[in-house]
């Protein structure tokens, strides 16, 4: 390719025009044109945007006013229609209320009539029942009174017979009690006699005990006196021991000791031989 790069071809007019254009429209000129075109385009865009905004605002205002009127119109129509419906409903409700009230009154009248008739029937029935029960009660009362009278008469007869038997029994019991009382009196007399005997025996025992106690007291006294005398002897002995203990030395005692040993000499010699 490099070999044929510089090969001369005959230039066409369009090539020539392109060369001329490339010579006339250099980079600087192109840049200037680009800047001018940019500014122009921006201006055009700005103007178009302002016009578009203005148109858009106007359109929005128009749409708003039309919508407002339309909504008001629709609301008015709806209100009128709903008023009509409400009136109809009220009329219907009033009508139904009136009819129900009438029905209620009618029902109440019917109920009161049936109630009255029922009450009258009940009263009549109750009066009949009361009359029946009264007649029954009177009959039963008469019967009971008759029975009571009969019972009273039978009781009176039995009472009279019982009184007779009880009287007899009481007389028997009284007689028995009399005999028992007589026996008790006798037993009491025996008991009193034994008590007096026991009291005499106790008195004798008391006297014996008193004498024995007195004897014991005398014996105890003698024993105590004996013990006292014994102790007194020991006391005197101790006194003598204490008083004479240090009075004699062994030299002074020696003759007495030898004398006593001499007296027991044979016994001592016998002990030593054993």
């Amino acid at each position, binding site marked *: 390719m490099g070999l044929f790069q510089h090969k001369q071809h005959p230039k066409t007019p369009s090539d020539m025009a392109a060369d001329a254009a490339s010579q006339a429209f250099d980079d600087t000129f192109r840049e200037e044109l680009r800047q001018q075109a940019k500014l122009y385009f921006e201006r055009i865009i700005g103007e178009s945007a302002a016009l578009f905004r203005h148109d858009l605002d106007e359109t929005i205002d128009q749409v708003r006013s039309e919508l407002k009127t339309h909504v008001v119109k629709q609301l008015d129509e709806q209100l009128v229609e709903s008023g009509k419906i409400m009136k109809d409903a009220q009329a219907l409700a009033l009508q139904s209320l009136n009819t129900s009230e009438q029905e209620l009154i009618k029902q109440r009248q019917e109920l009161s009539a049936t109630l009255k008739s029922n009450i009258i029937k009940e009263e009549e029935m109750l009066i009949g029942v009361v009359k029946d029960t009264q007649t029954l009660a009177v009959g039963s009362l008469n019967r009971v009174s008759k029975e009571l009278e009969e019972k009273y008469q039978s009781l009176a007869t039995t009472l009279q017979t019982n009184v007779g038997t009880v009287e007899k029994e009481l007389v028997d019991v009284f007689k028995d009690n009399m005999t028992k009382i007589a026996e008790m009196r006798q037993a009491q007399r025996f008991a009193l006699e034994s008590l007096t005997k026991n009291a005499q025996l106790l008195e004798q025992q008391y006297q014996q005990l008193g004498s024995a106690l007195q004897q014991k007291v005398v014996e105890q006294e003698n024993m105590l006196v004996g013990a006292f005398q014994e102790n007194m002897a020991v006391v005197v002995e101790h006194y003598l021991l204490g008083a004479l*203990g240090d009075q004699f030395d*062994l*030299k002074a005692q*020696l003759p007495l000791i030898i004398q006593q040993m001499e007296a027991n000499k044979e016994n001592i010699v016998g002990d030593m031989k054993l």
Partner: protein
Amino acid sequence: MTEEVKAKTYADFVIPSGVVTRIDVAHLLSELEWVDNELTTATVRVKAGAEQQAKPSVSGVLEEFLTSNDLKIDSSSARSDLIKQVRLLKDKVPVIHMTFAVTADQESLQELIAWLRTSIHPQAVISVGIQPALVAGVYLRTPNHVHDLSMRAVLKKSRGILTKELEALRG
């Protein structure tokens, strides 16, 4: 000399008046043993060439014992026999226990032992005790019997008299 010592047994010994108690007999024995040791040592030294030493001095009691029994302690065998017999004497000597109301002095004891040796047993020794409650007299105990020769015993015996006197006073 040796034959005489052998012939004399502990039963033949005359005990000096200075030997009153068994303890005195024991002292006598220990002194004899000491003298024996001294004399044996001296003999060995003389044999070894040392000079002859003076005889050891003995106590009066031992001196009296030797002289009264006519005993000689020059030879070693004689001393040995004597020591053996004195040991036997110490073990066999008849002891009389005497309890006094007051402290016993040596002089009185010697007088008592003299009487005991002449009247009761020639080799008798005494064992001394003190009991102040005895008041006076002696409480004597031989190997087999007890003889209460004290004033306390006399008072105890005559306690009946005192009681009678008190009864008489009471009326």
